Every structure is written in structure tokens, then in C-alpha cells.
């Protein structure tokens, strides 16, 4: 009976008692059932098992605290009401947005430096514009899980954008022997060629998330655009687009991607196009359904009678009333794109090596899992964490907007 075990049970019991005293039913149930489970675990697994439980609980607590702090930070930011000053001065807003966008595109095309910073600036400006008192009100309703999701997405964004500055080594740089264990130089050890795993994970954030994001956005632009048009115009256009979507959806996605990539060669633009084409019909269907419900509303009739054009109808009337389900769908599709790309790389058609991509990294070393080697688990965990985080945020948004009927 070591000091750790005594302390462990004491803490649990004290928490249970306090929870009971203050009539916190959930907390009491949790603490008390944990105590009971710990008895069994302690008998079966010894101190080691208890330590594992304690570490997990500690990690969970830490995550909760970080999420809490992050949420408070966001609320504070929002309450400063920076966004208002932007919306009051539209010219300033547009300049702040467009200048970095232009620089970013030029940097990408001409290979200028500091493209990352320009990109980061765009995102910061967008965030600042969103920082209004209303946002603060919304943020207060966010559960800790959603805050956690936002925190993870924020971290991934930083890692992806500033990858070359964060990663200690190059993404293709061979620095040690194959599968070298972790040390002070390499946080997560080396991969099969002796490249630093941590650096590759960081670069993977840029490549994989960048690819998945671009492809999902492309799918949404295509699918939602067509869906809104179809819902507004109706008639033969609606019918035609619907049948096109049926055709694409009836071809199994993996096979479609396989054919596309075999024909045009497995390069990143082709992967993005293939994925966009595969997922656009799903988005189309959803948008068509949601927008279809909106189109029959009286205020749309009124707008039509006013003589508004299709563009105005879509932009000002239909889109704002159907964003919630679209955002939810975005979260799920974003995750599916990762899996599709990983699946493609399993069939040998993924992103070009030596580019670091999480899906390919899982696949390259997947066989090692049979020997209890955790190398392939690291990129898989990176994918899983992001998926969970995105869906936490999506769940919150869904909860917030009760206007959701499907998906």
C-alpha cells in the first residue's frame, strides 16, 4: 500500500463526498463509479493500472482546463468588439483582407518568402471581423467539448501554416538510421528512412489538412452552388442536375478516384479534382433538400414579386437560411476526405513522396503495428484527433441551430 494508492483513493472519496454534499449528481456518479472501478482495477492490475487511470484523469482534466481557458480567451477577444470597428469601416476591412490574399497568391505562384505570414494574416483578419459582442454571447453557450475542438483546430492551423518554422528538420531530410527511437533531437523518433517523425507530422498538417480542406471547399462550391441554383431555378435544370448527381453517386467513390488518378497521374491537383467531383453530389443533394424547403417560404415569394434576381435570392434569402446543415455536413465530409486519400495511398495512388501526408504515413508503416510498434499510430492519432475536434465543433453548431432537418 504505497502513498500513491492511499492518496488516490482519498482524493476520489473526498470528491465523492463533496459532490454529494453540494448535490452535484453527475459529478458524484462519476467519482463514485470511478472509485468502485478502481477497486477492481487495483486488484487485477496493481498500482500500474491505478497510475494509468490517474494519468488519464489528469490528462482529461488538463484538456478540460485548456479548453476552458481557450474559451474564456475567445470570449474576452470577442467582447473587445474589434469586429464592429471593421464592419463600420468597410474600406479598411476590404483592404486588410485583399492585400494579404494578393500577396499570398503571388507568393505561391512566384515562390516569394513569407507566404505563410500573409496566409496567417488573412485568417487573423477574418477572425477579428468575427469578434463582436454577439459572438461572445454565442461563445458562452459553447460546451467545453466545442472549446476543445476549436483549440485543436487552432493548434493544427498554426502547425500547418508555420510548418517550416516549427519543424526542427526538413520534411524529406534524412538525419538518422531507420526507426531510430525518440531522443532529445527527435521528439517522436525516426521513420523508415531515418527522417524525423515530428517534423513530418508537422508538415503533414500542412499537406494533408491543406489537401482535405481545398478538396472539401471545392466540393462545397460545386455542390452547394449547383444545389442552390437548382432549387431556385427548378424545372429542367433541377431535373438535369439531379440526374447528374445520381450518376456520379452510383459509381463507387474509390473506383472512380482510382480511374481518375490512373488516367491523369497521381498529382495533387488531380486528387483534389477527383475528391471534389466525388463529394459534390452529396453536398448537392443536401443543399437541394434544404434550399427546397426554404424556397417555398412566403418571404421568398415576396422577394420574387419584388422582382429580385436569382443572384440576390440565393445570396440574401436562401443561403443565410440554410447554412447550419451545410456547415454540419462540411465537418463530416472533411473527415471523409482524409480517409479517401488515405485509402488511395493504400492502393498506391496517394500524394507524391517524399511529401509528408498522414494517410500515406499510416500506410507506409502500417505493418509495424503487428509488432506493437507505435510508429503508425502517431499519424493515425493525428487524423483521429482532428476528426473528433471538428465534429465537436460541428455538434455544437448543430445544437445551436434547431432548424436542422436532415444530416
Amino acid at each position, binding site marked *: 500500500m504505497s502513498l500513491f494508492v492511499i492518496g488516490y483513493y482519498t482524493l476520489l472519496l473526498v470528491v465523492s463526498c463533496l459532490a454529494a454534499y453540494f448535490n452535484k449528481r453527475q459529478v458524484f456518479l462519476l467519482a463514485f463509479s470511478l472509485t468502485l472501478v478502481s477497486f477492481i482495477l487495483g486488484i487485477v492490475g496493481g498500482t500500474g493500472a491505478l497510475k494509468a487511470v490517474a494519468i488519464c484523469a489528469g490528462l482529461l482534466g488538463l484538456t478540460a482546463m485548456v479548453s476552458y481557458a481557450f474559451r474564456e480567451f475567445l470570449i474576452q477577444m470577442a467582447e473587445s468588439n474589434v469586429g464592429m470597428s471593421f464592419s463600420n469601416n468597410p474600406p479598411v476591412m476590404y483592404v486588410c483582407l485583399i492585400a494579404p490574399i494578393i500577396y499570398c497568391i503571388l507568393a505561391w505562384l512566384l515562390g516569394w518568402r513569407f507566404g505563410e505570414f500573409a496566409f496567417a494574416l488573412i485568417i487573423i483578419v477574418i477572425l477579428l471581423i468575427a469578434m463582436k459582442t454577439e459572438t461572445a454571447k454565442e461563445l458562452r453557450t459553447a460546451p467545453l467539448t466545442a472549446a476543445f475542438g476549436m483549440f485543436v483546430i487552432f493548434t493544427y492551423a498554426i502547425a500547418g501554416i508555420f510548418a517550416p518554422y516549427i519543424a526542427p528538420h526538413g520534411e*524529406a531530410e*534524412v538525419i538518422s*538510421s*531507420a*526507426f531510430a527511437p525518440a531522443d532529445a533531437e527527435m521528439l517522436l523518433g525516426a521513420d*523508415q*528512412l*531515418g527522417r524525423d517523425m515530428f517534423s513530418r507530422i508537422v508538415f503533414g498538417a500542412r499537406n494533408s489538412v491543406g489537401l482535405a480542406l481545398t478538396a472539401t471547399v471545392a466540393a462545397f462550391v460545386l455542390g452547394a452552388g449547383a444545389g442552390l441554383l437548382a432549387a431556385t431555378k427548378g424545372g429542367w435544370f433541377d431535373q438535369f442536375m439531379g440526374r447528374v448527381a445520381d450518376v456520379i453517386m452510383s459509381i463507387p467513390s474509390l473506383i472512380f478516384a482510382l480511374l481518375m488518378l*490512373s488516367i491523369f*497521374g*497521381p498529382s495533387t491537383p488531380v486528387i483534389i479534382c477527383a475528391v471534389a467531383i466525388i463529394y459534390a453530389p452529396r453536398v448537392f443533394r443536401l443543399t437541394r433538400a434544404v434550399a427546397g424547403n426554404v424556397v417555398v417560404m412566403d418571404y421568398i415569394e415576396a422577394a420574387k414579386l419584388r422582382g429580385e434576381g436569382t443572384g440576390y435570392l440565393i445570396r440574401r434569402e436562401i443561403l443565410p437560411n440554410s447554412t447550419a446543415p451545410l456547415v454540419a455536413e462540411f465537418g463530416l465530409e472533411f473527415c471523409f476526405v482524409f480517409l479517401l486519400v488515405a485509402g488511395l495511398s493504400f492502393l*498506391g495512388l496517394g500524394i*507524391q*513522396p*517524399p511529401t509528408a501526408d498522414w494517410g500515406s504515413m499510416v500506410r507506409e*508503416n*502500417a*505493418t*509495424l503495428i*503487428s*509488432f506493437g*510498434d507505435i510508429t503508425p499510430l502517431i499519424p493515425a492519432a493525428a487524423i483521429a484527433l482532428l476528426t473528433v475536434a471538428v465534429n465537436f465543433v460541428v455538434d455544437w453548431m448543430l445544437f445551436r441551430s434547431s432548424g436542422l432537418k436532415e444530416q
Partner: protein
Amino acid sequence: MKKVKDQMMIDRLADAAREGRISRRSFMNYSVAAGMTASAATGLWGTSAKAAPSKGGNFRLGAHDGNTSDTHDPGTYVTFSMIQVAHTFRAYLTLIEPDGTLGPDVASEWSATPDAKEWTFKINENATFHSGAKVTANDVIASMNHHRGEESTSAAKALLADVVDLVDNGDNSVTFKLGSANADLPWLMTDYHLPIIPANDDGTANWQSGDGCGPYKLTSAEFGVNYTFERHDGWHLEGAYFDAVEVIVLNDPNARQTALVTGDVDAVTQLELKTLALLQRDPNLLIDNVPSAAAITMPMLVDTAPFDNVDVRNALKLSVNREELIEKIAFGAASVGNDFHHSPAMPYWPDIEQRQYDPDQAKSLLKKAGAEGLEVNLSVADSVYSGAVDMCVLYSEHAKAAGIKINVVREPNDGYYSDVWLKKPWCAVQWGARPTPDVMYSLAYKDDAAWNESRWKNPRFNELLRQAKAELDDAKRAEMYREMATLARDDGGTVIPFFPNFVYARRKNVGHGENLAASWPCDGARAASRWWFEG
């Protein structure tokens, strides 16, 4: 001969180690590879005193590389799993013995005229098809004609291009009449495309039926999935200890490995090299790491600038660190290449001084050629070899030290052999094992060969090739091959970083003989007829 070769290899390794030319890790790997037979012998014979292999059991072999579109047509055999299957139920005129020598199969003996232009093969009296019919000269001729003539779609067409006529001598023997001398024709007959299949009445070969004259009868075949066999009683050779054999296609490396670990199969034809070290710890498995005659080549088109300058070619040959490639890409399971396409696992292997990684000399050669700051493209595809793209990336890292910039171009797998190979100025290729240097050189280094992948045309080399082909004296031939190797090494357009080993594994209860044939994985693809279950 294999003994001599092993000894030579071990001597060479010892030399290399003394001079500090090779790392401990590579040394261990090579010596295990060369001495593997000795350790296997200890394991198999040393512990227990059983002499003759016991009969019985159902042998399940997990084979890699199978496709639903595989067929029994020997002319289009292309996957490794079909090669395994072919050697299990079909038989060839001759075969490669475990010790690397040429042995009799359907042909019990063979002889040539002194000019090596006519070869006569005598058919084994005991050789029968599974249907019960005796193997006749007619069947042999039909089998060979399947790969000859305008109409033939066989991939072995080029191999038999020299055969002018096939004559049935009436005494159960067949004479091959050749357009030009070829001392290696009996070796050619071991090619996996050339099994003996029963003839139809019209003289065509009946490959569709799945009848053969090999050690096992085919009982069911689902292409790309699995094949089952039972023993063909009355097979004309010794062996075939298992009662039944099953070849299961396991394309996924993880599936192969776990199936072997859990005992769902008794042996697998290929292991993923990165897990080699981990698998070796499993006490239930025995891993065979056999130096082979397969090769990784990087042919440069010598008629295209900048590869038309021999100094540039040699500079590129000097700027690759072969030891590191073997350590990181082949995980030690390879023998080092020396830029001539003649592996230590082939007969007549000449021991020529190993070319070393020497960026300084490469630099001075480039200076001499006036090609400083050389920048070249190297095309490669994933399907060439596992880790092929990584291999080229490492090569380009090495070449940086010599001031050479190599851009690695990753080509799609599909159509690599039709759109890149023989067309792009520099690319990476994998060659399967060929039985003799003559076959290899005639296929890919002869000036007018269809697959002369570097377009290298050296008159002296071709003259020697022609002479060696007709030379029946082994010592003289070996001398000629030494000179040819030197020419290819110092003048040719092909970088050969290494010869990958065949690495396969079996459960502990599967035994095999002292030596393992190096022509295909799993004892020359004859595990079914050569291996057995221990007690």
C-alpha cells in the same frame, strides 16, 4: 559451383571487413546470406538425427503478387503467384538445382553438336501428364511452338527467336536447331514461360485444361485467390513430400506476415523488409534470406546527352553510396552491385574490384568532361521495387556531394514499362533473375536486343558475347565473362546499385535441404516439391 561461389563471397566479405569498407550491419547480413545454408543445415540436421524427409501434410503457401486476371497461358505468365503455381503443377525440360547447377526434369539428358547449334533433349521415360498420358516429343514441340511464330502472343517469343526448327527424332527425343550457336540453350529451358504442356491433335498446346506433368495435380484454381493441388503419384523426379499443397494469394504484406505468424499458412514467398528485424525475433519462424540474380538497374541512354560521355556515366556511378542504399532501402537484404549485370548468384561470377562511393573522383571526372554542375532527371515508379522512390531520393542526396543535381521524377505505375522504360533518358528498373549471364546480356545488353535498355553498343562486348555463347569450355567462358563485366562496368550505361535478395519465411516445422535455388523465391518456386514437414 555454389560452394565455390559462397566461399568466394565470404572471402570477399572478409577482405572488405578488414579494410573497413563495409559496416558491421551489412557484413552480418551478407555473411548470413552467404552462410545461411550452413546455419540452416545446423538447424535442420544438427539437433536431430533424421535423414530422410517424411512424407505427408497439407502445405499452405502464402504467395504475393496475384491477380484475378491471371490465366494458365504460360505465354502470359507475369505474376509471382503464377510462377509459384506453374512450378507446382507443371514441369520444364530442365531445372535449376538447389545448388545452382542445371539438372534434369522432363528431359533426362541433353547433348549438343560441337558448334552448339543443335541441341537434342531426351525425354524422361517416366514423365507422365496428370491425365496419365506419357510425355511425348510431340508435346514438347507443341509446348515450344506456343511461343514461336507470327501468331504467338507469348512474352517468351524473344527467348526462342533463335530456334529455327524443332525435330521429333522418333526415339522420344527432340532436337532444337538454332540459327546461331548457343551453349546456354539448356539453361533457357528453365524459363518459367516454357513448361511442357499436352499437345492437341492439331499440334497446338492445350494450356487451358490445367493438365501438367509436374509434381502436383491441380485440383482447383480460383485465379488471384487460391489454388489447391494433390500429389501426382508417379512423378518422374524425387521429392513431392507433401500430400497436398495449397497456394493462397496474399497480396497485402501485413496479411502475409500475420497469416504466417498465426499459422494460417506454413510459408510465405516474400516478406516486407522493414519488418524483417522484428520477425526474426519470433521463435516459431525461420527466415530465408537468399542472394538472388534479380537486379535493380538504372539504365542511361548512352546515345543521349549528357549520358553520351563515358566520364559523365562513370561520375554518376561513383556518386551513389551503395552501402547506404542496401542498409536503408533493402534493409541489408541485398548484395552490392558493381555496375555489371552479373549477380554473385549466377554462374561464372567474376570477382572484380568493387566500385566505391567517391564524390571527389566523380567531381574530377565531371570536370574532365566539362559537365560541372550536372543536372539530370531520374524517372522511377513505386512499382519498380518497394522503396524505389525513396532509393532514388537517397541517391540524389548522395550525388549532391559530387555537385550533381538529380531530380527524382515519380512516374505513374500504370504504363511505366511502356511509356518510361526504354524511352526516358534515365530511369530505374527491376529485372527478374535470369539463370546465366548469357541470357541476361543477350536480353538487355546485346547491341540489337529489343530491350537494350541503355542502347549501349560496344563492339568488343558483343564480339565476346557471341564467342562465349558458342564456347562449351567453362574456364574459357568464365574468362570472357570477366572481360565483358569489366567493359560493362567501366564503359556501359547502367548503374546497378544492388541485387536484392529473395527474403521469404516458413514455420519452424517446415524443413528444406541444405541449399536453396536462387532463381525464384521459395527455393526456385519449387518449395512444394522440395520442402517437407519435420516429424
